């Protein structure tokens, strides 16, 4: 699955679920979502659960960190690496 496709799907989910009504242009692929408080810790957990369901991957506890989930680009990167590892 192309990274661009994953970015788009993740963004759609985040906009719909956590930022309804918000102009999608305000969130770029590199916008810091967690460290700037745009998504809170509960939203992060829901996001991780959605990623697992949607992509059939499993995130380890240590992978659910700000480093891996702070931006749409970072999220797409970890999803891509999980999908590649699965083969």
């Amino acid at each position, binding site marked *: 699955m192309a990274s661009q496709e994953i970015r788009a799907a993740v963004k759609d989910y985040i906009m719909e679920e956590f*930022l309804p009504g*918000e102009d999608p242009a305000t969130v770029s692929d590199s916008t810091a979502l967690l460290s700037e408080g*745009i998504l*809170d810790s509960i939203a992060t957990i829901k996001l991780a659960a959605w990623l697992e369901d949607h992509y059939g991957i499993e995130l380890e*506890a240590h992978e659910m960190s700000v480093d891996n989930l702070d931006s749409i680009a970072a999220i797409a990167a970890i999803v891509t690496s999980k999908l590649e590892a699965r083969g």
Partner: protein
Amino acid sequence: MSGRRLQDLLASSVAARPDAAALIEAGSPGPAWSYRDLAAAAAAIDAVLAEIGVGPGDRVGIHLAKSQAAVAALFAVLGRGAAYVPLDVTAPVSRLAWVARDCGLRALVGAAPAFEALVAELDLVPTAARDLGLSGLAEPLKILASGWSEADHRAELPAGEELAYILYTSGSTGRPKGVMHSHRSALAFVDWCSEVFEPRPEDVFSSHAPFHFDLSILDLYVSLKHGASLVLIGEELGKQPRALAPIIAEHRISIWYSTPSILSLLCFYGRPERSDCTSLRLVLFAGEVFPLKNLNALRELWPWPRYANLYGPTETNVCTWYELPEGPITADLPIGAVCAPDRGLVVDPEGRVVAAGEEGELVIAGGTVMKGYWNLPERSAGAFLELDTGAGYYRTGDLVRDRGDGQLLFVGRRDRMVKRRGYRVELGEIEAALCRLDEVYEAAAVALVDAEGATLIRAFVVWRAPEPPALVAIKKALGRELPLYMLPDSFVWVENLPKNANDKIDYEALKRTGS
């Protein structure tokens, strides 16, 4: 100075069990610290504090992520007869700088780049990092003197009431306020815990709450008093529900203490069934109402430990408690009966005790109650209800009623404070922060409850510019003023705010329009 102090608890355990594991950092490859190691690290920090001239009556800010070294720093400060002020490393630097100045810190202990930012904000001269020979630190510990004058910052405390720590909580006037606890009030609480929970040296305690949160007092001092082990769970790790059950299993934690929010997340998102948590013998929770559905699910998952609901604002430590009977809870969970060191009354708005079973405000006097708010003598005086008996009763602001058997039920709040994930949030402080933003003319915040029983904060904002800002932009701006747990979940841009007959904001109308 007379009487016992918190550091005496550590000293006894160091003497009795020098080689027992005192502190374990969850998720860290470093070794456990024995009681001897902890005492040695505290002594190394103490030497530097002494050099700086920290002594009785001073305050020292601790700007450290939860770690073995942070615990050593707390004890080093106490050992000098000073009070520690834990600074939330995740909070905006501007807020921390305000706190540091408010309580006139004599010195600061910190590490890592975040500390540099605070030092720069405070305009202090950065000092070279000192190698204290402490192992396992991600960053070298830095200790520096503020050089601020002492004259303006004196706590007026009666003799024998030496201050141990100041915890800053959300303040209704727009700035945080420092709750002062003495060694005596902290020890009254710690000793009560010993009586009712009977900790043993074999126990392994969780330390989930950050040190700036009052739940940490039980974790730290009760565990170390009894020569038990304390598993330090850092802020980042602690927010990840999937990390928690494996930590319980790995370290064989027997006494767990956290907010209901964390236990709910652990239960529903933490895959608890994959970990062996049978080491738990006691599960304690405090800080907010536990939604019954979540509580019952947790107890079905883990039926073996004792469970207790602990209640008390930061100002009183824990002042009521309720041990859960076996089986599912079907009616409202009580906050329980008043703890032995304290006395509690339920009073009407004029301060008269209400008839049995009637609703009123809970007021608390006794051993565990704070000494007042730092540098706010009038607010401190106003926080207490003076009764004919001469005793000052702290007004909790919580409305309660006796359900008929001496067990109190929480009914609601007298004012505009809400609990969000266990943290106190004064809606007025959010409004004040919003109003500090240039384009905001007026703002109001209300608390709503979602389908899962969690608190949601909605802000209504009168915006002066033609176009309202993006949600992302306003959250970022507000995030420079407030800790993340205080950021509103949603914003509504309005032309004006509804007012009542007294020209005050009509919050009830906002709650109706907002939901």
